[in-house]
């Protein structure tokens, strides 16, 4: 058994607390902001004591902002629905394409295998701005600009490499003999794929699906350029609070809170899968 002294425990607790404060303070601050009026937020010096208000949330949920220049219509809830639809559809399509591809990369030898796999991965580290201009011109030409399908297509750049590389490691960890045994027992390769390989790689598939959902959800720049108001997700929707009457910080904060909630819940719910999925795939057992 590992022996830990009181001193060591204290140091550990302090260090963990420091890390948590560093990462969670912005979230906490925005959480507090979301209950403040713009005047409270802009007060100098900032104060931790204020009269909480739900105005920001009611404005978002009813879709009407009262500003100095009058009432303005916003469609924030519509943005949330867009985000759910875009990310959800993207991940489903990416899973349908990426999981079989990952299996092919894990099990079969073909020409240029590693080159193709690496090229797919390289989509993840090419800066999006590099492809945005040609992409937006192409989207105009192809009639894909400002369509859900266009955005979902572009989101595949984010989701497929992630799914491919995480799930591939999982498939590689399954002993080929387990699949051979199922084939010898009289089952087709398709049955072997769906009933042996996919169930055994499920933690990895779940983790990869979840991560790519979060990455798609967080995407800003593709949606900003390639879609207009009625197709935009929450990340872009928050820009609407930069109004003629000034930046509505309280509304931005409330919007941020509302937009991180779904992914936060999802991540909390699937935390076990995430950690297991990401670490198991990486280390050969």
């Amino acid at each position, binding site marked *: 058994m590992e022996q830990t002294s009181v001193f060591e425990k204290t140091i550990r607790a302090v260090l963990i607390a420091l890390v948590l404060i560093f990462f969670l303070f912005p979230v906490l601050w925005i959480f507090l902001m979301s209950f403040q009026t713009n005047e409270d937020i802009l007060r100098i010096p900032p104060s931790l004591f204020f009269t909480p208000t739900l105005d920001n949330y009611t404005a978002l949920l009813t879709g009407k902002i009262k500003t100095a220049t009058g009432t303005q219509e916003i469609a924030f809830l519509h943005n949330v629905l867009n985000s759910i639809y875009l990310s959800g559809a993207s991940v489903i399509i990416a899973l349908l394409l990426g999981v079989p591809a990952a299996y092919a990369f894990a099990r079969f030898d073909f020409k240029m295998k590693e080159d193709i796999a690496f090229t797919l991965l390289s989509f993840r580290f090419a800066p999006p701005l590099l492809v945005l201009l040609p992409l937006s011109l192409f989207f105009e030409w192809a009639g894909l600009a400002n369509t859900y399908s266009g955005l979902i297509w572009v989101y595949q750049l984010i989701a497929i490499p992630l799914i491919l590389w995480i799930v591939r490691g999982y498939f590689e960890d399954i002993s080929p*003999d387990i699949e*051979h*045994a*199922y*084939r*010898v*027992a009289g089952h*087709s390769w398709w049955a072997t794929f769906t009933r042996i390989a996919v169930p055994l790689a499920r933690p990895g598939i779940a983790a990869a699906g979840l991560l790519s959902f979060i990455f798609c959800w967080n995407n800003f720049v593709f949606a900003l350029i390639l879609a207009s108001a009625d197709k935009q997700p929450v990340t872009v929707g928050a820009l609407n609070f930069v109004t003629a009457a000034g930046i509505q910080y309280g509304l931005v904060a409330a919007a941020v809170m509302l937009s991180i909630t779904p992914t936060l819940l999802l991540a909390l719910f699937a935390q076990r899968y995430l950690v297991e999925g990401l670490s198991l795939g990486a280390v050969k057992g």
Partner: protein
Amino acid sequence: MPQLALSGLSKSFKTGKVLDAVSLEADKGEIVVVFGPSGTGKTVLLRLIAGVEEPDTGTIMLEGRDVTDAAPEHRGIGMAFQNFALFPHMSAFDNIASALTAKKTTPATIRAKVEAVAKLLKIGHVLQHQPRELSNGQKQRTALARALVADPHILLLDDPLRNVDAKLRYEMRLELPALLKAAGSTVLYVTQDYKEAMALGDRIAVLLDGRLVQVAAPADVYREPASLGVARLFGDPTINLIPVEPAATQTGPAVVIGARSLQLPVGFAHAA
């Protein structure tokens, strides 16, 4: 017509040639033990027959049908893998039943067959367990049950006793011959334990460096090994080999060991 006929099977991997023109026949109900030290291609030979690997040259005939290019699921064989290869996410029952579910079989028939073979192998009480909850011996029996349950005409057993403890190996060595005979399948049994080979085989096929050097009944392989290599593989302790010089003396052929000379029967005259 032999139940199983291999002719001129060769297989190379990047590291070199593993099997070199292997030809072997087995009759219905016969147990042929493929014996050899590790790394001589025994497992590869079984994998070729199972269809998990493809041979470079040569043909594989099962019951008179050329299956060299057939997919594993179309060969109708049963196989027990050396590492058991149980499906980790299925219970022992489902593992065994997997050999039956591919064909059109009613759930009642599947249940009856699985329970019968489980009873035979004494694993009836652990059928609902997941593989990780089974002991090594139970895993080995489950893998064996999965290979046996569909009554395959050809049964391939890849060193099924390798990963079990010594006591169980001893027990299984006694049980297996009766079990395999009862199944009535033609069995190809891979092992690197000569005692297992002698105990189980109707015939022993000795594989050395990818070539079959002798195929004969156990007693013949033991008494009249085809080569020094084969002789070295059998017997415990291993045989003593002493270099001698043959010489022709007045009294007939003899061998000289150091200062002594040993008379040989007249039949050895050609050696001197």
